[in-house]
């Protein structure tokens, strides 16, 4: 019984130690309220017992489509933005549909997405201030080299019609309301199908992955099927995949990335329009545009993104 007491004291000791440890450490703090002007970090003169000021920089949160994240572009740009504006950039990667939803809820202050029709709707409903395109590339249909459905070189619409009619070759859809999924639906519509009634649940050949571009490419690879992908993610993942480009011609396959600041006038919970505008200025600046254009060229030998500084490509 008395030994037990010592045991309890020991456990108590451990708990106290752990609590002490956690209280000293940074982290677990909420987001700092944004200051009106971004001022340099206040340096406190250190006294021997001082813990250095750790969370002096404010945090700024954005949501991005997975393709700008999985390709590593945001990972590359993040430190540059953080240094220029003295801010901790928190990046959520998700499908464009969910990124827009985070924006509507005010959980982020800016979004980088690629789903033009839904972006225009988002801005026309005043959730977003303005849609600012900053880069583009193309979508393409990729598949196994053997091309079991024989769709190589077709127009995107003809390719989809062939896939639908044969109903044997697997097609993996994102199925997650992402920008790529939105593009796929437009392609089906353009090919003359009603997506909700004819394509969804069309059969075993039509697989809805419900995940990001990377996992979807891997699933298509494992199933030796076709999928629609943005060029950037495909190039970045190509070395791990047995998939090759099958259909990559057609103006309809244009893939435009834009940045949108959330409008605090409509989304009252959005907090930091000033920093969102900084982000837009950053992404469309000559220096960053050049870096976006060069990004990945050395590693993959191909250009992943074409910069377009605030202009709609093709106009």
């Amino acid at each position, binding site marked *: *019984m008395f*030994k*037990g007491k010592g*045991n*309890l004291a*020991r*456990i108590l000791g*451990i*708990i106290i130690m*752990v*609590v002490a440890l*956690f209280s000293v*450490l940074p*982290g*677990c*703090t*909420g*987001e700092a*309220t944004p200051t009106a002007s971004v001022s340099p970090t206040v340096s406190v003169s250190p006294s021997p017992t001082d813990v250095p000021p750790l969370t002096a920089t404010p*945090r700024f*949160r954005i949501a991005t489509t997975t393709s700008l994240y*999985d390709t590593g572009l945001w*990972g590359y740009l*993040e430190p540059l933005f953080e240094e220029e504006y003295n801010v*901790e950039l*928190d*990046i*959520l*990667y998700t499908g464009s549909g969910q990124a827009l939803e985070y924006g509507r*809820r*005010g*959980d982020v202050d800016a979004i980088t997405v690629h789903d033009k029709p839904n972006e225009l709707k988002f801005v026309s409903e005043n959730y977003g201030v303005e849609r600012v395109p900053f880069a583009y590339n193309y979508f393409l249909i990729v598949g196994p080299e053997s091309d079991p459905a024989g769709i190589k070189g077709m127009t995107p619409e003809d390719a989809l019609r062939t896939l639908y009619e044969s109903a044997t070759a697997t097609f993996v859809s994102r199925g997650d309301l992402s920008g790529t999924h939105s593009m796929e639906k437009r392609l089906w519509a353009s090919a003359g199908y009603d997506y909700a009634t004819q394509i969804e649940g069309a059969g075993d050949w039509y697989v809805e992955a419900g*995940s*990001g571009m*990377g*996992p979807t490419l*891997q699933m298509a690879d494992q199933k030796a099927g076709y999928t629609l992908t943005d060029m950037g993610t495909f190039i970045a*993942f190509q070395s*791990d995949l047995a998939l090759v480009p099958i259909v990559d011609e057609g103006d309809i396959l244009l893939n435009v990335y834009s940045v949108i600041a959330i409008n605090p006038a409509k*989304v009252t*919970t*959005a*907090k930091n329009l000033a920093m969102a505008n900084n982000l837009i200025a950053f992404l469309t600046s000559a220096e960053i545009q050049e870096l976006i254009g060069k990004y990945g060229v050395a590693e993959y030998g191909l250009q992943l993104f074409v910069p377009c500084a605030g202009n709609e490509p093709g106009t």
Partner: protein
Amino acid sequence: MTDIWNGLTRAFELIVTFDPEVMAIAWLSLRIAFSSVLIAAIISLPLGALIHFHSFPGKRLLISVIQTFYSVPTVTVGLFIFVMFSRSGPLGGFGLLFTPAVMVIGQVLLVMPILLGLTISALSGIDRSITDTARSLGASGWQNVLVVMKEARFAVMAAVILGFGRAISEVGLALMVGGNIKGFTRVITTAISLETGKGDIELSMALGIILIIIALIINLILNRVQQRR
């Protein structure tokens, strides 16, 4: 097979070189799971005792409900926390969504039923003769409670270990309310989920191995504490 072998060597490399990013991720995982279990224990252990030592109508039902929540899906708790803490949700004013703090809150909710339910069963498992003896020796009500709690401490400790296991291994909640933000809310499980999606199987394997090593160390420590009787 090469994946597994490369994963093992990569894990070894990342651990012995103290790769700063991996260490930061592992450390955050540990901190979040520890804080969650600690807070959940502070609430659940006394509450469990309170439920055990009192009889009231609906007690059985309450215990059944608690036990049902052992298996609540992490994404369900995640969804609930997301809706509550989203800036446009009722608790949005705290600005906690997508921070480590909200991950702790979610994991507390996840772990509490386990600690609560298992504390109650631990206390129920104590032989009545012990309380009878204590009472016959003139123990008051409170002393009696202390005697039972002391006897049940090992079973309670097992519940804490289980709760820790649930907290450090879950991914659904961490992804939904933490957002897997690099350098801020990225924990081992969400990092594995991301890296596997990106096709970096080796790094995922390495992180998985690190997670298992952490779990092993924690269990060894807690077992040692338990065995010092």
